[in-house]
């Protein structure tokens, strides 16, 4: 039987759901009364906003699905085999391991922490953490879909993979002297994601036990991860799509064009945008591809920088790693991405 306090807590939560439903109904009624088709700008905004989401939502869900499958069905010992490699090979191998495990940026942080705790060289775990969201097959597939038919198709797809790998390894080298104790923050209750509602038997960081692989509990846990990831990443995608649609609809082309045509500024601006939007790497290519005014360098900067440094990652890094780690990542990723994108701009711009 539930304790009375828990009952009250559960009941009071329905009040928030009620407010939310009321707000949604009011919004729907407002759309019905003030037909958006009557205002060209609003209709344009809704079309761009909707199209970005319709394109990206299946990739978010696909990523959540694979990520949940890895979390629930793949034992963490698979990752731990990296520790058996000679040290000089661990960073590149960790980077390449990202290609084999489709974990998004949010999922890769707890995985990296667990790998470090389990004895993997911290720099290799960090390299994996940064590379996986850029190199994983779903991200590559979504990038290919977004740029299919463009003359910058190969520079974007290969550039993202190559530069993402190099930047991740570079960060790994920079922090290679740090021990587990120096790098990791001591775990507190607050560090765990309070929004997640899993089966209580396991959390994100807990290993998949070898037995009962096909049990009902395991599948419930799988769908728990799936929907949690979808909801968690979906809200960032909605905000990102909203900002992208607003920029395209309401900001004069002369302003965007002015920024886009200034080489270094355009790359830094796209990095800043990626930081603010905090998109999931499985869907960010669709947003990047919509900024047609920006050259290959600017768009690539968005795609390499965003999965490694953004607002939500700042919170996750802060909860997982020591003070200053996020600053180090920002500096190294910014410098490497800027240099790499400038070179690509020279070669393909």
């Amino acid at each position, binding site marked *: 039987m*539930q304790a009375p306090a828990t009952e009250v807590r*559960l009941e*009071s*939560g*329905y009040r*928030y*759901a009620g*407010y*939310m439903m009321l*707000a*949604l109904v009011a919004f729907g009624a407002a*759309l019905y009364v003030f037909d*958006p*088709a009557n205002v*060209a700008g609003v*209709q*344009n905004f*809704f*079309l761009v906003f*909707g*199209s970005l989401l*319709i*394109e990206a*939502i*299946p990739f978010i*869900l*696909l990523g959540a*699905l694979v990520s949940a499958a890895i979390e629930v069905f793949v034992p963490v010992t698979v990752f731990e085999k990296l520790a058996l490699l000679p040290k000089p090979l661990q960073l590149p191998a960790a980077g390449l391991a990202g290609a084999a495990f489709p974990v998004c940026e949010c999922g890769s942080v707890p995985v990296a922490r667990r790998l470090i705790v389990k004895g993997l060289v911290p720099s290799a775990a960090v390299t994996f953490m940064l590379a996986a969201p850029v190199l994983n097959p779903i991200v590559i597939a979504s990038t290919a*879909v*977004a*740029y*299919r*038919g*463009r*003359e*910058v198709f190969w520079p974007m797809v290969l550039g993202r993979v190559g530069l993402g790998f190099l930047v991740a390894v570079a960060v790994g080298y920079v922090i290679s002297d740090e021990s587990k104790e120096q790098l990791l923050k001591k775990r507190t209750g607050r560090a765990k994601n309070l*929004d997640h*509602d899993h089966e*209580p038997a396991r959390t994100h960081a807990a290993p998949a036990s070898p037995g009962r692989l096909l049990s009902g509990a395991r*599948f*419930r846990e799988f*769908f728990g991860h*799936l*929907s949690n990831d*979808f*909801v*968690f990443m*979906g*809200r960032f995608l*909605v*905000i990102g799509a909203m900002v*992208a649609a607003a920029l395209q*609809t309401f900001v*004069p*082309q002369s302003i965007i064009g002015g920024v886009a045509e200034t080489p270094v500024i355009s790359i830094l601006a796209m990095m800043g945008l990626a930081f603010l939007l905090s998109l999931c790497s499985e869907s960010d290519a*669709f947003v990047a*591809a*919509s900024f*047609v*005014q920006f050259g290959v360098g600017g768009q690539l900067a968005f795609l390499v920088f965003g999965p490694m440094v953004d607002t939500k990652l700042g919170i996750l890094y802060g909860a997982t790693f020591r003070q200053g780690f996020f600053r180090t990542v920002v500096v190294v990723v910014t410098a490497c991405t800027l240099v790499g994108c400038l070179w690509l701009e020279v070669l393909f711009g």
Partner: protein
Amino acid sequence: MSAVRTAEGLQLRERTSARVSPSRVLDALALGSWTAVFWFLLITDRTSLYLSTRTAWVVPTGAILLTVGLVGRLLSLRSIDPKPITARSAVGIGLIVVPVIIVLALPPASLGSYAASRRSTFSSGGVVASAGDIASGDLSLLDVAGGQRSGEGFAALVDRAGERVDFTGIVTKDPGAPADEFVLTRFLISCCVADALSVNVRVVGAPPGRFKADQWVRVSGRFYPLGRDVIVDSTEIVAVERPKRPYLSP
């Protein structure tokens, strides 16, 4: 009682003490609303208003994946440790559902002249039609776009000056243009509406004041590339319904 039976008994007790978790109901609402959107797009055949023909496959894929996710979430609504709905999670779910309402409420529409005034044209975009494509076959707006993109392509267009063309697009008014002229615009999307680029030709010889901005028309006439512009000397202009696929795909 055997050890096995005890384990079963434990599982049974867990099941009976489990109850519906409000936060999971909210997750199901988010998944369910997006599932509805994807099935709605499929059933009403509105995919082409948002996506290119080459990326349209994501809609049936999304519909299936979302349905699987929704069914899974509905089957796992119960928990032995149900979590309450917090203000933050309610706002988050509301945010995810807002675009659902927009897509469902928005009448069938495509980008119009407002977008034409604010989107990049082909000359700054990245999609090309080769000079070989332009040189042969019926001339299309894709060929025009290719010609505006490269010098080689434009030369191929010039070689075909004076040929008859039939172009379909929307009327875009240029404030400074004579009364018998307008710009015919069609958007090309390689992925979704967000990456739309506009292809424009100037139509001359149009009946003054007969066609309004955003109206879909089919223009027949002879075409002449001049400078970087393409002009169509119209012989017939008729109003048409918006095509089933309003956007061109490379």
